[in-house]
């Protein structure tokens, strides 16, 4: 049998290549990881405005009178708190203590929701949610038809305002509107992002992708908008301490260990809620912590974390040199007893132990 994994192309694949992007397979999609320089792209988003094509992300529509019940059953956050035009960060716990995926839940109307999931988990999530769909919720996987642009940075609202009637500047974080944008109908304009720099995420049909991208680049020209790759997306999210599925959370990590207690609501029943509740009462064994390097050295996923007695107390799950702060920083799991803020730890970088300190994200405070 042919075991070649098919790498999917996003709608604007050719356009990114023409822009000179370095394309790499990521989560099954050929994605732009860098256009010019990771550091320059990172600074563009922190200080101005940049546009990411993150069309690899997955989107499901759930419709019907029982849609909310199904969402409540499979996600950890309380989706009953949502109102039309409100989005929420959440996760899908599995029944063995871990996490199937983290996701965004958008309430489009009382009986229609949009779930946005990680590209690498589209099929897994679809199968998982379908398994609990016993009451006839209409489910549609629209991932292949939807492009997603994240326009991020302090100048994002100004740069985009001429393209829409929606009052971007006054939109609250984690709210959205559905409307015309740059000539495309029914675009979800969402005041969300994965960078901590502010801005918007735009969900639109593939057929409008090229036109909308070009209009954004034109409208943003006065603000020096630039295309940004996934490389900078990762350093930006790490400076905020945002979790990345597959690195910092996975099928084995509990949402409570991962510091996602704030999206784990026990006022309702959901997958594995009983044992997660027990874990909350009894306390977790390990915790996801943030840390900053106190000496020169760059932490990377997989490196071991040591205490001052040179005993292994955990491991790094994400790490980088911070382009904004020019120090190494990362996330990792350590035993609960060693997880207090300010604790001195050591990261095993090759043969050396580099001093670091446990710190509470966000690392970058603007």
């Amino acid at each position, binding site marked *: 049998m042919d075991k070649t994994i098919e790498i999917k192309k996003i709608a604007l694949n050719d356009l990114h290549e023409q822009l000179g992007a*370095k394309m790499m397979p990521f989560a099954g999609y050929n994605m732009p*990881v*860098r256009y010019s*320089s*990771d*550091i320059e792209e*990172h600074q563009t988003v922190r200080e101005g405005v940049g546009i990411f094509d993150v069309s690899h992300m997955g989107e499901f529509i759930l419709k019907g009178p029982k849609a909310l019940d199904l969402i409540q059953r499979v996600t950890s956050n309380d989706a009953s708190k949502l109102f039309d035009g409100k989005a929420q960060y959440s996760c899908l716990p599995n029944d063995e203590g871990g996490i199937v995926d983290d996701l965004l839940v958008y309430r489009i109307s009382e009986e229609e929701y949009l779930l946005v999931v990680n590209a690498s988990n589209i099929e897994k999530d679809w199968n998982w949610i379908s398994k609990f769909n016993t009451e006839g919720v209409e489910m549609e996987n629209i991932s292949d038809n939807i492009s997603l642009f994240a326009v991020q940075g302090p100048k994002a609202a100004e740069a985009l305002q001429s393209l829409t009637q929606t009052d971007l500047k006054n939109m609250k974080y984690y709210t959205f509107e559905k409307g015309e944008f740059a000539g495309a109908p029914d675009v979800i304009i969402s005041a969300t992002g994965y960078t901590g720099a502010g801005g918007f995420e735009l969900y639109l049909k593939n057929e409008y992708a090229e036109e909308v991208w070009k209009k954004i680049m034109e409208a943003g020209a006065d603000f020096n908008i630039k295309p940004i790759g996934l*490389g900078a997306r*990762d*350093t930006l999210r790490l400076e905020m301490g945002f979790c990345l599925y597959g690195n910092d959370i996975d099928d084995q990590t509990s949402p409570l260990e991962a510091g996602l207690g704030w999206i784990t609501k026990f006022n309702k029943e959901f997958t594995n809620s009983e044992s997660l509740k027990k874990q909350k009462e009894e306390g977790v064994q390990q915790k996801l912590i943030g840390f900053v390097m106190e000496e*020169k*050295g*760059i932490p*990377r996923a997989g490196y071991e974390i040591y205490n001052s007695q040179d005993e292994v107390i955990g491991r790094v799950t994400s790490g*980088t*040199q911070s*382009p904004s702060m020019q120090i190494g920083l990362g996330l990792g799991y350590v035993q609960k007893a060693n997880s207090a803020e300010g604790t001195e730890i050591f990261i095993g970088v*090759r043969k050396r132990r580099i001093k670091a300190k446990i710190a509470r994200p966000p690392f970058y405070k603007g």
Partner: protein
Amino acid sequence: MNLPENLKYTEDHEWIRVEGKEAYIGITDFAQKELGDIVYVEIETEGETIEKGEVFGTVEAVKTVSDLFMPLNGEVLEVNEELEGEPELVNSDPYGKGWMIKISIEDESQLDSLLSVEQYKEVVGA
């Protein structure tokens, strides 16, 4: 892609400039582009004699880390100290100010195993 004719290359994307019994070593333009912004060059083998294929240092980019391999048997005579403060020289001038180490050549017969510019072009599909 910039690939000077007067250099030798390796499949690990290093270049070698032979000067008599000594050689300068760095990484190629292709390698620096693949790595992206280089933020740290760690070479702590000055004065050590290292065999061909062994690690003499590490280069850290924002997104990735990569080992540096000795292309020839030799002693690390000198490390480019400018990279301590300006590792980005490897990106901006990989064949010049971005050189990494100077070594003594212990076994001249090993020079035959290095790639010519034509052979290296095939490696990188240039």
